[in-house]
């Protein structure tokens, strides 16, 4: 359990589990609003882990952290908007 003190190890494990969940949602043919929101949330959590623990921006100047996290929010929002339009 000592190994889990390293944020990179924790991030790697969460990323693997999150990938398995997205794959599983594909396998069961998940579709529609709820599954789209779930997959975007999973992608957001994964992206944030990469930004904070792999790119090591957790303790970077606030501007750069905001720019990359902002990119993730922007992309997720645009995708959500486009999918919402497609359901109209």
């Amino acid at each position: 359990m000592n190994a889990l003190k390293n944020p990179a190890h924790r991030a790697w494990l969460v990323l693997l589990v999150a990938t398995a969940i997205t794959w599983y949602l594909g396998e069961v043919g998940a579709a529609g609003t709820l599954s789209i929101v779930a997959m975007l949330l999973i992608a957001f959590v994964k992206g944030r882990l990469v930004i904070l623990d792999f790119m090591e921006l957790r303790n970077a100047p606030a501007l750069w952290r905001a720019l990359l996290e902002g990119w993730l929010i922007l992309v997720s929002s645009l995708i959500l908007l486009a999918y919402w339009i497609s359901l109209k």
Partner: protein
Amino acid sequence: MCAMTAIAPTAPETPARRLPGDLAIWFFILAEMLAFAVFFSAYAFARATHVAEFNLYQQTLDRNLGALNTVLLITGSWFVVLAVQAAHRDDRPAIPRNILLGFLCGAGFLAVKVVEYAAKFGAGISMSTNTFYMFYISLTFFHFMHVILGMVILAILWVQARKGVYGSHDAHGLESGAAYWHMVDLLWIVLFPLVYVMR
């Protein structure tokens, strides 16, 4: 004086906020990410007007290979973080070793992608087949090129690391290359659910 020396070593360390690597690489990364943001949005909005087509042809994609490639990039990124951590604690042999493992994960990604492309192109699918395949091929190929560039950077880092360039005294070059490699991973983390799974 006595109180000062007693307090100093136990005072909590608050490391200054620091951007890993060189500032220039972060501007480059941001520019690349904006290009991909445009691509991702273009895919999503094109899909909004071709929902039936996108949902139909998305099912022809190999989700297992897509997920396997996600695992390869995540693991490749993780190895490169371990290389940076090794540099900070001056564990010299672990630096090139982890860079090499990260590079091999990238090579695995390319191999899986080639298998996937071979199946699609072998079935006569091309950019002009339909809108969905146009996006699938251009988006994944644009990303594919970035994986190759990331691997070229890792190869340079490996050579430099073997020369003993990186350590706690200086890891800027290593951190810059690592940041680019993580960007390649970050982009795939959005691309995989978007193109392969979301419907």
